[in-house]
Structures are given as C-alpha cells and as structure tokens.
C-alpha cells in the first residue's frame, strides 16, 4: 500500500480533547465530528485540510481519553495516515481497530516539515520525502496488527476468528 499526500505538522502530546473537544461528543456521526477536527489547536483546520493529507506529529499523539471519535474525526476529515514519534496506547488501538493507518518513526517525526509532500510505503515501512529528497524508516508494524489490517479491522477479524453466527 502506497500513501501519498501533503503534510500538516503538529507538536508533542496532542490530546484527544484538542483532536475532538468533548462538547461535540453528543454525536457519533463521522461527518459532524470531522467539522471540528483539531479545533483545540487550529480552529480553521477542518476548512484547510484536504482529502488525502497526512498528519506528522511528535511524541504521545492521542493521549487522554479513550474516545474513538478522535480517529473517526481524523479519518472522516480526509486524513489518510498519521506519522508520530509515539502514540498514546488507546489511540494506537483505536486507529488499528478503525482502519486508520498510523506509523511510528522518530526520524520522520523530526525531519518532515509542514506542507512537505511525502509517500509512505506501508508494506516496506519506508517513508519518502519528495520535497526534501529524503527517506526515513518506520518502526515495523507488529504481526498481529498486520493481521488486523489485512482482515479489515477488529470487527471483521472478530467475525473470522470466532466464526460468529447470526
């Protein structure tokens, strides 16, 4: 899988309250949530972001609440993937469970700048920076996570594994 897009940069410890403020959690409609994505940091982000864009951020992205509304809002806003130095663990689970591709890479997190054009080779774990002509390595995705992605998320994986009958 190749993911190519333009980069939006964010800092360290980006928490779920700024990704999608709790005052909007009285709905779980992805389109409504997307209208407020990253509002706690940049009020106009939902207007600026374009389908296919990529977020690159520092350490501990998605810390705070367990709200799955956070990856849902990011995905519904058109963001294709997130690269971070590290992810908070519940966000990490939620991203895989809901099919939002995420990659851990210290190098990419440090070197990629706002508006760079990058390409992620998800299978090889290689991130290419077309703007700067650089290449970075992403941490390998654990085998089980690859299994989840291949199945199409946790719901599909659960269906297969437990042969749930209706």
């Amino acid at each position, binding site marked *: 899988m190749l993911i190519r897009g333009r980069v939006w940069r964010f800092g360290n410890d980006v*928490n779920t309250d700024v990704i999608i403020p709790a005052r909007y959690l009285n709905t779980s409609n992805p389109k409504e949530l997307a209208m407020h994505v990253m509002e706690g940091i940049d009020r106009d982000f939902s207007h600026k972001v374009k389908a296919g864009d990529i977020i690159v951020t520092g350490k501990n992205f998605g810390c705070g*609440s*367990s709200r799955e509304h956070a990856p849902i809002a990011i995905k519904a806003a058109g963001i294709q993937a997130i690269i971070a130095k590290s992810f908070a663990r519940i966000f990490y689970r939620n991203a895989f469970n809901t099919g939002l591709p995420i990659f851990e890479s210290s190098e990419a997190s440090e070197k990629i700048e706002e508006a760079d054009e990058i390409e992620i080779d998800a299978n090889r774990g290689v991130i290419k920076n077309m703007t700067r002509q650089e290449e970075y390595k992403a941490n390998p995705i654990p085998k089980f996570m690859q299994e989840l992605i291949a199945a199409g998320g946790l*719901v599909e994986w659960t269906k297969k594994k437990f042969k*749930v009958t209706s």
Partner: protein
Amino acid sequence: MTITEKILAAHSVKEEVSPGELINAKVDLILANDVTAPIAISEFKKIGSKDVFDRDRIALIPDHFTPQKDIKAAEQCKIVRDFSREYKISLYFEVGRMGIEHVLLPEEGLVVPGDLVIGADSHTCTYGALGAFATGVGSTDVAAAMATGECWFKVPESIKFIYYGKLNKWVGGKDLILHTIGDIGVDGALYRAMEFDGETIGALSMHGRLTMCNMAIEAGGKSGIIVPDSITESYVNKRAKRLYKFYKSDSDVRYAEVHEYDCSKISLTVSCPHLPSNVRPAAELFEVSIDQVVIGSCTNGRLEDLRDAAIVIKGRKVNPNVRMVVIPATQKIYREAMKEGLLDIFIEAEAAVSTPTCGPCLGGHMGILAKGERAIATTNRNFVGRMGHPESEVYLSNPAVAAASAVLGRIGTPEELGL
C-alpha cells in the same frame, strides 16, 4: 511474575506470560458510557453476533452528558437504553440509579480483586486500586468483547513506584499521583503498568488508592495497580458481588523502572495548564485568581473527598467572585453526604450541589468556562479547552485545596484558613 502478569496469565489460561507477549484474554467485566457505548453498539451489530457473551458482565452507564443535557445527548442515551432492553443487560444504570462509572462499580462490588476489566473510558484504570487489571480501550474493542467475552492485549512491562514517609497535613492520594506524573511526564509510563507500593500506600485508605490508580492514564500508563491487602479486604468483603482473588507480585520480579518518593517532602500539589504533568506546589500559586471551583469526578467525587472539602468550607462562604459546584459521584454518596450534613455545609457556603454526572470535567455541562475564565478542579485533565472555551484554564488539585481556593477566590491552601 508481577501481579499484572499473573492476572493476565490466569485470564488467558496460561501458566506464565511475559512483557511484550500478545494474548487473548477472557474479561470479567466490560464497561461503556453514553459517549462510547453508541459506537460500540453499532460496531457490535456489524459483527452480527446474535447475542452478547454474558448479559450480566456488561455495564452500560450513561454518566457523561446525563441527566440528558440536550437532544443529541438524549438520543445517544436512548441508543444505550434501547440496546440494554433488547439484550437484557442487567448492569444498565438509568439516571436516578447511575453514578460516575468508576466510582459506582467499585462501590457496588461489581469489580473485585483479581478481575480483568476493560472499559471504553480511559479512566477504567481506577479499579487497579482493588488489585484488578483494568484498562481503557476503544468502542470497537468493547464491541468485539461484548460478542466474544475476550480482548487482545500486549502484556505490559511494569514500573514500580515506592512511596515512603509520613504524609503532610491535607496531602493525599491526589497529591501523590500529581507529583508522580510531574516527575515522569504525561508519557512517562506509556504502554506500561504502574504498580504503586511502599509503606505510605500500605497506610493509604481505599479512596486515596482509587484516586491514584484513576490517574495512571495521565502518565500514559496502561494500568495502575496496588497489591491487595487488609485495606482492600475490608473494602471489598462487604461489597463483592462475585468471588475474588488476591494476587501479588513475586519478590524476584524485575521491573522496567523503579521510582522512590519520600512523601514527607511532597507538599499540596497543583497541576497547572495545560498538562497534568505541569505541577507546582499549591502554596506557590497564591497569585492565581479563579472563577470556578469543581469538586467531583471519578478522581475525587467520593464521600471522603466531600468530607475533606466540607471541613475546609464549613462556616465560611464561597468568595463572591467565585462559583463552586459540588458533584457527589453516585446516588449513595449523595445520600450519605446529605445524612452527614455535608450538603448543608456546601449550600450554606453558597455552593451549588449537583446530581451525579461527569459534567464539567470534560466540558460537557454543569459548569462550563467562558473565554478567559479559570477553574481549580478535583478532576483529572487540564488540556486546552477541557472544561469549556479553548482560552479557559483548568488547575487540578485535591478537594481540600479546591475548597480553600473557593473561599480565598484564588489558589490557596487550608493552612491559610488556619486549618
């Protein structure tokens, strides 16, 4: 093995597990609320399971935007209610019976030592105080677990935190955990289990332990846990609705890290905006004026917390420039606080007393901040916009400091009131 590894091994029917290992484990209880359950329910329906794995092991507690604050919130709650009726979920708690989930479940004996609990709420880690492995997950995890009774986990490494020495006056579990988060940072325990130990923890009451484990997530922890002892036993034996088992860590266990704290050197501690790790001694913040005080939440909405606040505010008035909101965490606590005269003390002091809800802690309702306003709260997060406007501010403290600040109109300590 550590207590955490032993509980995970027992629930995955293995002799032994080690950090880094991926396991599928049986869960004893699954939890979701009015924010996270609607997504879990729609994902559960996609799985196509004809029934839930056990209708007595799923707790659905609408506590965030309840009593239903607007039409959208009411509709979210209705999804949870309808699902609970359709699948005959026995642990559904309606307004009037509900309380804040992480206070209600231990109080009712619905989580017990040795349990493996998952909840679609990050503060599910609270139950580690009982010697259970409890961790926050997402709605889709809950959906899958509702169908199968199982969940996947990576066995976490454990970090040991040893507390020794005598606590200073008014210093409690909240100050210890804020101090710890200040020391290691908001990702200092990322993916790891935080095991709290030492003579000070051994002497700490259950409400202080619940407060500490509650905030493990604010250091990035997967869980917080305390090896059960006689304090645990006396808390659970009159409440437990199921059999329980005490696990303890082996003495030869290797921890990823060990941190030690001399509690006699820990003062009343406040987290400043906009991270829980941004801690300062309360006494240094006397120039910070406040507009609102909130006493409540899954962190500090228990009876003992209300007692602390009441001792401080008794016979005094909330400062004319401040509004104070007190939120007992459950109906039982509300009633007991009423019987003990605590609610009278708050109302006499001109504070507002609310029915149980998470409400203002996450900026939902019941005390939202305007642009430029500042609050001190006994809650757990002070991220940008957490309690309202993105340009408002939240300081975190224990109940006694919050109550003293309400009287002073600025951040202050009970000592300043001669207490």
